[in-house]
């Protein structure tokens, strides 16, 4: 199997200097990797609205689980679904930490431009 190196944005830009870039509200020839202030505000607002309550939910379920373990009435009904949720969510919580640690959220808008450049590279070699 031939292994290929994924091109960096700089490589992609260099190769496609003479081609029009995908429309992204930016000056021609320069990939726009940042956010507009409106995008940043909407993203931040929704992040606060979604991620904080979901973390609260995660912790809440864990607390419930502890109460049930200590013998709260009717608890045995809930153990299976809660355990199921905790197992699935704990895995994703670890993945979230891993992703943050490994810089997956730095320069967060870059992948959307890079992916379109890669698509264009693949299609450029194919004449339909």
């Amino acid at each position, binding site marked *: 199997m031939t292994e290929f190196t994924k091109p960096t944005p700089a490589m992609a830009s260099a190769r496609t200097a003479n081609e029009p870039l995908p429309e992204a509200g930016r000056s021609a020839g320069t990939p726009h990797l940042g956010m507009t202030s409106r995008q940043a505000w909407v993203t931040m607002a929704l992040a606060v609205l979604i991620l904080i309550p979901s973390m609260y939910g995660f912790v809440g379920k864990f607390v419930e689980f502890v109460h049930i373990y200590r013998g709260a009435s009717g608890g045995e009904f809930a153990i299976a679904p809660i355990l199921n949720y905790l197992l699935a969510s704990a895995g994703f919580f670890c993945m979230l930490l891993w992703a943050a640690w490994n810089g997956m959220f730095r320069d967060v808008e870059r992948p959307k431009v890079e992916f379109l450049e890669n698509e264009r590279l693949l299609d450029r070699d194919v*004449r*339909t």
Partner: protein
Amino acid sequence: MTSGSQATPAATVPDHPAHEDLVDEKIILCYYVAALTFLTVSMLAGLLVALQLVHWNVLRGIELLSPGRWRMIHTNAIAYGFLANAFLGTLHWVVPRLTFHKVLSKPLSWFIFVTWQVIVGLTALGIILGPTFQDQPWLLELAKQWRLPMNLGAQGLEWGETPFWIDPVALLGLLLVAVNFMVPIGKSKGPMYVTLWYFMAAFVWTFLTYAMGNLLPEYVVAGTSAGAIGGLFIHDLVGLFVTPLGWGLMYYFVPILLKRPIWSHGLSLVGFWGLAFFYPLQGIHHFLYTPIPMFLQYGAVISTIAVELVVATVVINFFGTLGKKGSEFFTNLPIRYFYTGMVFYFITCFQCALQVTLTFQKLIHFTDWVVGHAHLVMFGVFSLWLFGIMTYLFPRLLGRPWYSRTLCEYHYWLSSVSLFVMFLDLTLAGVFQGWYWASLQPWDASTDGSQPFWITRVFAGLGMFAGLLCFLANLWMTWRGAEAAERSSGRVAAATA
């Protein structure tokens, strides 16, 4: 297969792979053919059940083709036959192109393809033949000797009717799918595009969801706990298998077709992580007013309403991406499929937020409202998206434009309008049925009162099936290389690419 596309040597740009080195187009075609075959079977089964409800069962007296069994064929063929096959085929296109790495193994891909068709076929056989065979004396003796469960046919779990003896094979298949696609994803470097996050989650979630739903109630938990697991399974199958794959594909295809990046990649990641933490909480909302502790029921209600915020991120992002390119909705057929599905998705999620409340549940529980909701999400959203993807990819896979743009249009309009009629009809039927029951009238009064709705449903189903026939006829003519029906084949190509 180079699909009729003439490829220049990969050496043109030496450090990136050529499409034909990455993508096995033949397996995608095979998956799509299998998917459309199961879709045809499923829709025919749905029509049979719809006819039964209007007292016109054309197969009356044939035990093997009784409506109870065909209903399970209808749901299983859609979930595991159509959606799973179509998703797997599309993944063979998307994952290698996104990661620049081939799937782990081509022979493994073909092994999975064959195994999956055997699994779906055996599930159908188990559902149809199992109930007939399982009271045979020799089988009873065998089961007693080997201490096997007696439900050789359908397992007693909604959406999980796959007979128990197929479950381990299906799980192995799902594990192999995850390995085959996770390896190329693992090889890609740097921050990942949101599509790959969704796909990774789907590979893990689908395996876990299937194991939880099919094994725990069968072997580990019983009674109310098993009911709670069943609720999680039904909902997680939609939210943790179909939804991440569907949205992952939308984040891939929409920017390509609109030729512009997604509005905000950061927002798409917020949506993804919101789904990851909110969604698994919801399943219990299928069992409101049951002996399951109320704190679990309330938790499910609140998290279901909260997930609307996650839905809002996705809808804002995609309509932000469409932006001033709104005319694409009218001219570009795949985009029209995608955005129609998104509107239906918003409706279905909005409906979700209302119908999980205890107040709504009093009225609509067990009614056709739920059936309308299920059709809206499975056909109106995910099937329409897959039709859009197929409309875009088939010309590329076959190397020629669609035979007829008109048939493509018929497919879209018949599918979307008929589905919407069916959704409205069943939603209204659900409200009527709820009030019949609340007013304590005899059961027959509610079924008699449902007849106009059920008759309308038959015609809506016929419309959807007619749309599928247009698609199949168009595909047949395109595949065999018939001359495009329209004078300008360029118009056909432009509308579907």
